[in-house]
């Protein structure tokens, strides 16, 4: 069976914050392998803009927890060079919005060097960066740029949505021999969840089946997978039995569990926080259509953020981001149900 599931949790597990799970992954990996170092803005003395690296400077010293100047291109370039020479850098960019300044380094160097050097060097590095809107950070600082990295061959792109996945996938990312774009979500840092005790990894490149159902498959990207799950729970009241797939890996896309699910439910709704035009959901819809055409009982429906620069106004911002209500509405449309009717 192709369905991917999170790594089996060992017997002992604990409720932890997403940010804490990330910190544990960093610390445990740094203990394990001293070629790993962290570099980013305010990650040392300040403990990180989102407190992920708090305490790591004291624990591992300034050689391995490097506070960098505000120069994303230089930070990423430095990390690429270090990775080519045998270290394993883990970059923190304060948010994905600032990665645009480093986009040339990521796209033209990180993603291509191993290929252009005929495999003689590799670039084992991780770039961690949170994205997403909802915090009144306005048009320039509210992006969901999964697609910008998802379209680049040579990169692995993942977006964990649970504390357990955050820890397990960050460990896998650090151990990977190719550059990994590790997309966190500002809105998920304070989410609590069971995290298995001890050392474990969660494979990259695998989607997770979050919920089984028979009427419709909802594929969620990043935080939208969490909302999809909420929507699916509420849809039970309307006698709609939705299956939820958490994409987790944006590049490569793990088609098998999605295809298996859609062939079962014959309906599909895809959801992302970013713009759906040319978005990850556009790719998902196209891929599902190619693989499941003769199984589809309704058009695949896409849901994404409003096609506007993110408004600063709180109400307008709320209106621009997909909600679980929006997901429910689209599921009803796909099933041909009238709103509110059970």
């Amino acid at each position, binding site marked *: 069976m192709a369905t991917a599931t999170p790594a089996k949790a060992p017997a002992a597990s604990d409720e932890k914050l997403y940010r804490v799970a990330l910190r544990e992954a960093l610390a445990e990996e740094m203990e394990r392998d001293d070629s790993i170092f962290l570099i980013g803005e305010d990650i040392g003395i300040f403990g990180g803009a989102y407190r992920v690296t708090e305490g790591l400077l004291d624990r591992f010293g300034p050689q391995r927890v490097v506070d960098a100047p505000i120069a994303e291109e230089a930070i990423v370039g430095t990390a690429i060079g270090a990775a080519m020479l045998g270290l394993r850098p883990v970059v923190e960019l304060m948010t994905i919005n600032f990665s645009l300044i480093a986009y040339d380094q990521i796209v033209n160097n990180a993603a291509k060097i191993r290929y252009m050097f005929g495999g003689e060097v590799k670039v084992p590095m991780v770039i961690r960066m949170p994205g997403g809107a909802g915090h009144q950070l306005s048009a320039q600082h509210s992006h969901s740029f999964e697609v910008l990295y998802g379209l680049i061959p040579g990169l692995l792109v993942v977006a964990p949505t649970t504390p357990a996945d955050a820890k397990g996938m960050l460990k896998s990312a650090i151990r990977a021999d190719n550059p990994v774009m590790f997309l966190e979500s500002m809105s998920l840092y304070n989410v609590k969840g069971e995290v298995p005790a001890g050392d474990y990894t969660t494979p990259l490149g695998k989607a997770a089946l979050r919920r089984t159902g028979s009427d419709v498959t909802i594929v969620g990207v990043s935080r939208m997978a969490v909302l999809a799950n909420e929507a699916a729970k509420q849809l039970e009241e309307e006698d709609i039995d939705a299956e939820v797939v958490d994409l987790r890996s944006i590049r490569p896309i793990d088609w098998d569990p999605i295809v298996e699910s859609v062939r079962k439910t014959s309906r599909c709704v895809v959801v992302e926080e970013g713009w759906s035009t040319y978005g990850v959901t556009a790719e998902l819809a196209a891929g599902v259509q190619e693989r499941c055409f003769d199984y589809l*009982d309704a058009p695949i429906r896409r*849901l994404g953020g409003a096609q506007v620069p993110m408004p600063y106004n709180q109400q307008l911002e709320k209106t621009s981001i997909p909600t679980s209500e929006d997901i429910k509405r689209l599921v009803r449309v796909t099933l041909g149900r009238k709103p509110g009717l059970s």
Partner: protein
Amino acid sequence: MPDINMPKLSDTMEEGTIVEWKKKSGDQVKTGEVLAEVESDKATFDLEAEADGVLQILVEQGVPAKIGAPIAKIGEAGEAAPAKQPAQQKAAAEPKGKEPEAPAPKAQPVPAPPAAAPAPPRERGGQQDGQQDGIKASPLAKRLAAEMGIDLSSLKGSGPEGRIVKEDVMAAGGTRPAAERRRTQPAGDRRAGAEVEIVEPNRMQATIARRMAEAKSTIPEFQVTVEARVDLAVSLRQQLKDSVPGAEKVTMTDFLVRACALALRKFPEVNSSWVEGKFQRKRSINIGLAVAPSQGMGLLVPVVHDADLKDLIQISIESRQVIERARSGRPNEGDLSGATFSISNLGMYGVDEFVAIINPPEAGILAVGAIKDVPVVAEGRIVPGKVMRMTLSVDHRVFYGATAAQFMAEVKRLVENPVTLLVPPAP
């Protein structure tokens, strides 16, 4: 402004219902365009425009209308409703530039979103999806229909925008998807009670119920059963299928239609009715064939007209066409009316024999069982043979036991000597 009236589509049709208007009042329509789907007591059929012009709907969908009653009008562009513009005035020159009172806008402008910022789920993908040969069906529905041999054009879509979806195909095929079963039989306390589900009959089912109860309670009937050897008929049928163009699909029922037509000619009293205390002898011999509709429960009786004037191959071709048209819900005029005698063949389901209920005003119906391989005694020896049992239900007011027996003996003789069925019809 020509009226469109509720057409009469069968003998028993008294009123019809517009299931769905395919056009709106104010729409420009062309001759031959489908205006509406109309349900009679027997079938659903398309109502086509017989003139070009602007449609004005008089009877809304879901409202029954007596046959002959006006249900819509087709007028010229700019022509207003007759109540507002009497016919005399119409004779004068059309006032130029006078627009219809309230022309339906060609396309509804998209209403402005209520919020200042566009809300996210505004995707309008898939407008053309599933549209093929004018039938809107999902890819899954198309695949299933092909696998199950169901004609999509005979189905009505229950999905969004009238799309035919999986459930429609499954319902037509007699199976319901698992999800549907789960919904209609929820477990536990979610929907307690209701041991019995109340199901509304469609018009066809309501008509069958009324007419069958009427037939059974008013007709003094009796039955006559014969068993015929059909070895020769079976092998003749095979020969026809193998070697005669046009006869590839000839059925045992076609043989029986021909046999009954010949027997009815010989016994005109069987081809009669009892109407208001008098016999009605019918000149035409029109044979109704009881068949199941392609979807749902019910009964259709498509009619082969003038069966005595047609040869076996003609009957075979025509009966197949008329059955197909009836099953598709698009019968031609006369396809479902005018029968003078009926045949109900349940042989393909393996029944040995059965008794059919007379469909008034006909006086007889032949119920046909399966062809069975049995030991038979021929010239004092037991040999393998093929037999078929046929039971005639008789309206005793119209003819009597001796006639019934002679009629059945004649049918039996013809079926057992099937070469007689190949003789061209006498003029």
